[in-house]
């Protein structure tokens, strides 16, 4: 599957995958003497579910942190929507339309589900502070309009029952779902999910997979996700990047990756017969 950056394609299940949204070119990230990412290039296309997999310590989370701006690579270029991105702060990148979740849930624990998702809409609300301070007309209308969007997200994720519950009190699986909701609140151009199914039981994993597919399907959101669980990844993603020890060892559709000898070696150990 090799395409030009502007070409589109249709997936087996009938969704359209568009041109390149984000392109990573020869990214190298070092922490002192440790090389976390070695010269990795790959792209993410409009409307696809793109997975980054690899064993523990392969550099997957570092990669996500580079995309999201928590880390700044020493070498390489990040291209977003056809433009080379200058080094930016994470909050500036959020304003460009990149939202994310975290491996070890990073919710605002003291706030309710509703407020968490409302906070996710931070980049979508523009009323100046002095209007907010006195709840002047535009600020009030903005609150109400955004509240409606949040209610839709709550319906979509089937978390109506916990909308007024402080999220610190929720069970793990639901917290993960609220965190997805907060990222969706930004109506992102690119949604980054860091191990969305880590620590879940089978049932919760199935629910989460369904939500990820639905988000992609209903809103056409481009999703890049990191996952440990090979089975789930292969089922839901369109294309997969495989990393091992900071280097890219495979890239392609799930079937291509599954049959890639380097990938089999990395996951199952080398068995030369």
């Amino acid at each position, binding site marked *: 599957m090799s395409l030009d950056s502007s070409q589109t394609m249709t997936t087996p299940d009938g969704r359209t995958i568009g041109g390149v949204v984000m392109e990573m070119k020869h990214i190298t990230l070092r922490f002192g003497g440790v090389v976390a990412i070695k010269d990795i290039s790959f792209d993410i296309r409009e409307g696809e579910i793109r997975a980054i997999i690899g064993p523990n310590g392969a550099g997957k989370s570092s990669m996500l942190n580079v995309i999201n701006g928590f880390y700044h690579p020493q070498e390489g270029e990040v291209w977003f929507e056809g433009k080379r991105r200058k080094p930016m702060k994470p*909050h500036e990148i*959020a304003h460009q339309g990149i939202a*994310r979740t975290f491996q070890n849930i990073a919710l605002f624990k003291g*706030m309710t589900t509703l407020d968490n998702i409302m*906070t996710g809409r931070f980049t979508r*609300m523009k009323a100046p502070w002095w209007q907010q301070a006195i*709840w002047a007309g535009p600020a009030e209308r903005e609150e109400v309009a955004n509240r409606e969007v949040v209610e839709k997200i709550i319906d979509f994720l089937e978390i109506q029952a916990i909308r007024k519950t402080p999220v610190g009190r929720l069970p793990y699986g639901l917290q993960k779902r609220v965190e997805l909701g907060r990222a969706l609140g930004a109506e992102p151009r690119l949604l980054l999910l860091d191990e969305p199914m880590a620590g879940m039981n089978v049932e919760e994993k199935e629910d989460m997979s369904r939500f990820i597919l639905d988000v992609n399907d209903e809103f056409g959101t481009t999703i890049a996700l990191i996952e440990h669980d090979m089975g789930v990844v292969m089922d839901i993603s369109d294309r997969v990047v495989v990393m091992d020890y900071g280097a890219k060892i495979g890239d392609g559709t799930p079937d291509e990756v599954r049959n890639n000898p380097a990938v089999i070696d990395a996951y199952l150990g080398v068995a030369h017969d």
Partner: protein
Amino acid sequence: MSPTFLYTVEVILNGLMAGVMYALVALGFVLIFKASGIFNYAQGVMALFAALTLVGIQQGQVPFSHLINAVFGTDIHHFGWTVPTLLAILLSLCVMILFAWLVNRLILRHLVNQEPIILFMATIGLAYFMEGLGDLMWGSDIKRLDVGLPSGGSFWLEDVTAGWAAEGSEYYGMYIDLLDVWATMIAVTLVIVLTLFSQYTKTGRALRAVADDHQAALSVGISLKAIWVIVWSIAGFVALVAGIMWGAKLGVQFSLSLIALKALPVLMLGGFTSIPGAIVGGLIIGVGEKLFEFSIGPMIGGATENWFAYVLALLFLVFRPQGLFGEKIIERV
């Protein structure tokens, strides 16, 4: 009604109002501590500085006049005008916002991710710097602050309550200082406005978000630096209100910065991270120390108000170190 009962009610009312004044100072500490984990030692001096600035602007004082006169051999002290109170308050608020921005730009930005103790030390330095700056800008003499609020006892209340006492008893009515009543109303309004702001506006939610989780806040597009300037501005605003109230009560003088010491026991009771805690803590200490002075004080020679709050705080530290509303201290082993 018996006079003793009426006296007790009077003591409790005065205690509640004193408590609100303590809570006002404690509130500034909580705001900054919640958002950035910094215990801002300079909060009391901020109140003093705000009050000095307000009086200075109101009376048309020339800032740094002593310095200017010493260097240039001039003799200027006043511009020769006075500024209306409301305008002077607004201008003082602008000064406090500028101050918040400068503190973040010049100090805190360079100390990001440092240990809490280092940030704490930085605020101690800030406190002394501001005390000196306030002195240099506006002079060290005690000033009277008049913002047009009524003061003195309420004759109406005295007359009414005197009538409640039993026939023939020597009770001359309750003494409630009108300034305290106003201070309480203003403080209550301030707390309500702050609560609504943090609950129902985008910036308010961002403030709470930063208090909860820095990384997550960044990931939804909140700039920590912008939030910290806002938090320090709000703390500056609270300091201004506290400075006005305490300044109107005691006069604007350098001992005003010591009201911060009274806020410490309030914080121990209420917890460093809880706004309702700061208020309830303030009320408990206010009522507690007045009642203690009223009931036990005469037996042990009085002046218990000087130490009661600290002893109460000490008891809390022993039995409930996180305060009434603070986050529980749970440590995994």
